């Protein structure tokens, strides 16, 4: 080996080393860039707006703050919990800090994911340190006021009432951010823009059983009517507590209380109004646990179990494949014998054709998974909301996740996964402001009796088909009576024709409407 060649080899080795070094550095740089882009969520500023409070099993407002890179046009923000995903598309005008609000399920394992340009980042917010379980003796309210400090003075924390305070600017446009609250109070606000933004959310929250309170003077002062209470389709009745008097409007399962600005408002008024609604005008609370959207009793106790899969009907694809297989095997040998004298052509052609048919056959989707729906409509006046109990067997191809696009048109549904029997999945879906279902002859439940019979006897008659209830309606009626009749909840109940519109757009699913009832609370 000459000296020159040795030099050349050494030089080439150095060059190769530099190339390798460059590659490693470039790779590391790319990884760093990727990880930087992936870590989009600002962990410090992403927070629960209701912190440190939050109702377990319900959705709480979460402020998601993330950094948008250069060139990003939009971001997909998702709240991922067991069986339910809420998504929101956020348009990004310029690079840098961006934020949005979305409901976050107060439950372990619930997290948020931000996806920008195909890269995603996940973050699990901390659970609230002061969980607010539902209770008749303990209320959880959201208070919106221009002066939050004054509102805090007016509503000091206590054992019977916990409030989260928000300024006018923080008004939610979506009722799903108010899911965990028993009541919403609006104090001293005469801001028309605030109401315009908040009105729909408040109304939907109320039809699902929420209690809202506001001043009466607001409407005349702002000239906005109807705003919160004066809905043309809601019934008004006088209401007073202490020095505070006003009107009570009923809409759906909830109610709105307007109180005079001249009266002295205090936390006692708020509590009295909530009790007035939740205790159904009685002096004592109903028995049993307090109502909460987090409770999904029928699945826990096995009342509403799936009835099995609907037998699939043969699709056109099956007939096409079977016909082609038959044609191929019958005509293939005849045609091949006409075209060629070689004996191996026909079996080979059939083998190739059959292989193609095998592939096509495997492309078929499986049988549709049967998803069963029970519905309970809460109706008052001309307003109604619906709670649907949805379940399916956890078979292959059955839906696993309920995805809700928060910005989508249509009803603002909110789903939560419910505990179900082994081998099944279940969801409870709340839909505000649903069109009134066609209802049959109503019966009145008063003090545990319907038409002079103990409610269980009536339920047994319904199961035997001796009333106006069919099998599915009788089952949901049976559960409802067992759940509420003992608790002093009087109501007018009627069988209803369930809504045939699928609650969501799951592919390859057979929706089976098992039954529906409509319930109108009767107050003491």
């Amino acid at each position, binding site marked *: 080996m000459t000296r020159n060649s040795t030099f050349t080899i050494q030089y080439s080795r150095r060059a190769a080393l530099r190339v390798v070094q460059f590659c490693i550095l470039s790779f590391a740089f790319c990884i760093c860039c990727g990880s930087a882009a992936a870590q989009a969520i600002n962990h410090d500023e992403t927070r629960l707006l209701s912190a440190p409070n939050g109702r377990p099993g319900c959705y709480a407002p979460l402020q998601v703050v993330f950094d948008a890179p250069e060139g990003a046009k939009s971001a997909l923000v998702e709240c991922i919990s067991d069986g339910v995903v809420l998504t929101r598309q956020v348009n990004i005008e310029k690079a840098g800090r961006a934020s949005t609000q979305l409901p976050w399920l107060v439950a372990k394992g619930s997290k948020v994911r931000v996806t920008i340009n195909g890269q995603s980042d996940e973050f699990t917010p901390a659970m609230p340190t002061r969980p607010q379980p539902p209770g008749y003796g303990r209320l959880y309210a959201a208070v919106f006021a221009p002066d939050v400090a004054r509102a805090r003075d007016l509503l000091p924390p206590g054992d019977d009432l916990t409030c989260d305070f928000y300024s006018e600017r923080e008004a939610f446009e979506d009722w799903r951010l108010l899911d965990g609250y028993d009541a919403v109070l609006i104090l001293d606000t005469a801001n028309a823009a605030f109401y315009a933004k908040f009105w729909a959310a408040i109304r939907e929250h109320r039809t699902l059983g929420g209690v809202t309170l506001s001043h009466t003077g607001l409407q005349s002062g702002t000239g906005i009517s109807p705003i919160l209470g004066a809905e043309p389709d809601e019934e008004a009745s006088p209401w007073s507590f202490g020095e505070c008097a006003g009107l009570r409007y009923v809409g759906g399962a909830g109610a709105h209380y307007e109180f005079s600005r001249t009266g002295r408002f205090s936390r006692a008024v708020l509590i009295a109004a909530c009790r007035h609604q939740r205790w159904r005008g009685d002096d004592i609370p109903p028995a049993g646990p307090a109502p909460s959207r987090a409770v999904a009793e029928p699945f826990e106790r096995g009342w509403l179990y799936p009835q099995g899969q609907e037998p699939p009907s043969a*699709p056109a694809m099956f007939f096409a494949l079977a016909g082609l297989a038959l044609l191929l095997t019958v005509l293939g*040998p005849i045609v091949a014998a006409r075209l060629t004298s070689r004996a191996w052509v026909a079996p080979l052609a059939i083998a190739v054709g059959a292989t193609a048919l095998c592939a096509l056959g495997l492309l078929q989707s499986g049988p549709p998974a049967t998803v069963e729906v029970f519905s309970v409509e809460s109706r008052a006046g001309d307003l109604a909301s619906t709670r649907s109990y949805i379940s399916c067997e956890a*078979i292959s191809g059955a839906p696993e996740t309920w995805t809700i696009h928060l910005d989508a048109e249509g009803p603002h549904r909110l789903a939560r996964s419910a505990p179900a029997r082994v081998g099944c999945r279940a969801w409870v879906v709340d839909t505000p402001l649903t069109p009134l279902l066609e209802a049959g002859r109503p019966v009145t439940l008063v003090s545990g009796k319907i038409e002079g019979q103990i409610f269980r006897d009536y339920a047994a008659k319904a199961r035997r088909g001796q009333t106006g209830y069919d099998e599915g309606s009788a089952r949901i009626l049976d559960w409802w009576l067992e759940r509420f009749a003992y608790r002093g909840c009087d109501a007018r109940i009627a069988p209803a024709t369930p809504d045939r519109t699928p609650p969501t757009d799951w592919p390859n699913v057979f929706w089976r409407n098992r039954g529906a009832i409509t319930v109108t609370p009767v107050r003491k």
Partner: protein
Amino acid sequence: MAPSRFQPAIVVAILLASASVLAVESWRAAFGIAIDASLLRALVYIELALPLLVLAPVPFKQRSEACVATLWAVACMLAGSATLFAFSFVSTSPFPLQTRGLCAAAWVASCGVTCLGAALEGRLGGPWLVRARVAWLCVAALPALWHYFALEYATKSLLHLRPLSPQWLLAAYPDADWETFTYWPLLALGGGTWLAALILTRGRA
């Protein structure tokens, strides 16, 4: 005996006819079958019986005819699979896909045995094809009966014979997997008899 060229059509027709029979609700109820994975399982059982019953090559004297008979067996197997997969709308069960290896092994064994019978008949004369088919039917079917009687009336099972019968294997391994190479006796039987058929036809024009 149907001509070889219509044997794939017979396979497809038998499977479709069986499915039609099982589509009648009262008959389906009598068999304890629903329109789900159990229907696919029943069709797989029927499909696995077809190599024993349907495959019957014409007695041959030339080696190329043995190859063509093998091609017809392949065509039958794939036509049966295509028909079975057309029923994928019934269930997403992976069972039909998992049993493809077993099905192929059954067709290989049947092809080898019947080819040997056809070659013997072509060379020696006499009903060798029928004898081979009957012998293969006995070998394939009797262990299932033995298994049944053993389970019913004795405490000792004859499970060591399970690889000899496709149905037997299916009964013993309901979740038979593609990748588990437990079909070697069937493949060895089929390969050996097919080679013997080729040797018997060697040198004959």
